[in-house]
């Protein structure tokens, strides 16, 4: 009888139930909530599902999916004893900064920079919306005054970049400056990007008058093929020469875009363009999402700092939106009422959601107004802007 009992105890001890910690339990619940939000409420399902499932996998007790390889010395030679968990290896693409530039490559191949080329002054709105990054950076440093929370300059920079509303940029910068915060920062960045349609409209409405929101903008000019081909090459050269630390993100974004535009000259490029837009990006999104989710380790994630990061992320998004709209108002005044300030909020990257929000709020004020293409200009400028801001933070804090 006692033999059977012993075996049962042994069996129990080999299961996850025997070793699960309370942090892991909480993280498993959190990952299920995220899965629910993604599946049922449609919050960025493409990203949130891999992230949430990665979180679930990494917090399984005793499974060791995130464990690194172990070595043992046999006869003076180091031999691999255990190759480590799959997620550990997938995470290397995040840690070494491989996935985010690849995502940028895909984003470049999917983005039409035509609206930006047609209306170059909208690029300034993409710069103004980066205000959120820097105000949050200062905000995070000021939290030092509160007891129990203190962020280093590097951590504050990584938190600020959430305001760029650009997941790959946030992950890229965080892995360079404060890799231990990657989990909370990625989760905050992607959650708020999904919440853009809820966060932005109240700020946009509060800062503009009905008259400003009703402005109908002039039709955009036609952009020639030559311009579209030269644009990525020029942007890469200019940005990389001024700010070498931004070269990798901007370079890959523009490389993807060049492949997209080259299809018109050399139809054989269609193969590369399609792969960049679809298969490659999809594969990298799966790896990146799962690996980022896997960094949300219970012991590291469940801290007061995480809560502070999530609050600061919201401030970053709001400030970025406000910066864009306020600059939009300045352009409205300077242009004599030709620019609708609502397109300013699209300066936070979040392509194309932020532009869609501009369109929606604009149409509420004036049902016959189509701001979408006008908002795409600042929107894609925002991607360049946040990559430049990341480059500045990297070179000054790294």
């Amino acid at each position: 009888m006692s033999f059977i009992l012993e075996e049962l105890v042994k069996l129990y001890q080999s299961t996850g139930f025997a070793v699960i910690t309370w942090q892991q339990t909480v993280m498993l619940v959190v990952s299920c909530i995220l899965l629910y939000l993604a599946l049922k409420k449609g919050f960025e399902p493409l990203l949130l599902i891999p992230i949430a499932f990665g979180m679930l996998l990494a917090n399984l007790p005793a499974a060791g999916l995130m464990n690194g390889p172990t070595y043992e010395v046999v006869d003076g030679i180091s031999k691999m004893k255990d190759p480590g968990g799959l997620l550990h290896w997938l995470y290397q693409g995040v840690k070494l900064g491989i996935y985010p530039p690849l995502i940028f490559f895909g984003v470049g191949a999917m983005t039409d920079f035509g609206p930006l080329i047609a209306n170059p002054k909208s690029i300034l709105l993409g710069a103004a919306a980066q205000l959120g990054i820097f105000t949050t950076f200062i905000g995070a440093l000021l939290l030092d005054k509160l007891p129990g929370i203190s962020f280093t300059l590097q951590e504050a920079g990584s938190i600020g970049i959430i305001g760029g509303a650009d997941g790959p940029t946030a992950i890229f910068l965080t892995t360079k400056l404060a890799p231990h915060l990657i989990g909370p920062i990625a989760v905050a960045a992607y959650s708020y990007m999904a919440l853009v349609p809820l966060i932005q409209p109240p700020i946009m409405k509060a800062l503009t008058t009905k008259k400003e929101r009703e402005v109908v903008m002039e039709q955009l000019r036609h952009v020639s093929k030559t311009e579209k081909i030269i644009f990525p090459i020029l942007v890469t050269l200019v940005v990389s020469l001024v700010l070498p630390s931004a070269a990798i993100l901007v370079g890959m974004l523009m490389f993807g875009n060049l492949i997209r535009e080259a299809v018109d000259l050399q139809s054989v490029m269609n193969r590369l363009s399609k792969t960049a837009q679809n298969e490659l990006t999809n594969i990298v999104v799966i790896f990146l999402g799962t690996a980022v989710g896997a960094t949300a380790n219970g012991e590291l994630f469940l801290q007061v700092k995480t809560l502070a990061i999530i609050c600061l992320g919201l401030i970053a998004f709001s400030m970025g939106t406000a910066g864009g709209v306020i600059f939009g108002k300045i352009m409205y005044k300077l242009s004599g009422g030709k620019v609708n300030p609502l397109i300013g909020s699209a300066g936070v990257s979040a392509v194309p959601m932020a532009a869609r929000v501009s369109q929606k709020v604009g149409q509420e004020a004036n049902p016959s107004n189509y701001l979408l293409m006008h908002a795409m200009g600042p929107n894609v400028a925002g991607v360049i802007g946040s990559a430049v801001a990341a480059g500045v933070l990297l070179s000054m804090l790294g």
Partner: protein
Amino acid sequence: MNPLLYGLLVTLFGIVIVFLVLVALWGILAMMKSFFGEKGNKTANQNVIKNEPAPAAVAVAKAEPQDAEDDELIAVIMAAISASLGSQSNLVIKKITRVGDSTPIWGQIGRHEQMLNRL
């Protein structure tokens, strides 16, 4: 240096550099327009007009009220018309009617293939 002070310095530099880089891009885009902009514009428009089958445009112009309020479809039709006309003037669409397609199936497949080749 005090971290907060250094942070303020980073902020100042950051905002200035972001603006400088993007203003430089603005300048380059403006220059690019004067070099490559207008010429490309005219030829592109001519191409569009040549490729456009004339009866299609007429068919769209004739009208009967359509019941569904499909904003996106209206935007697409409006964009197609203004691209094919290539005019700078403001366009007003009053009515849109769906007309029956008399193209035989082989013609439709041929057209579809043409479009896919251009994607």
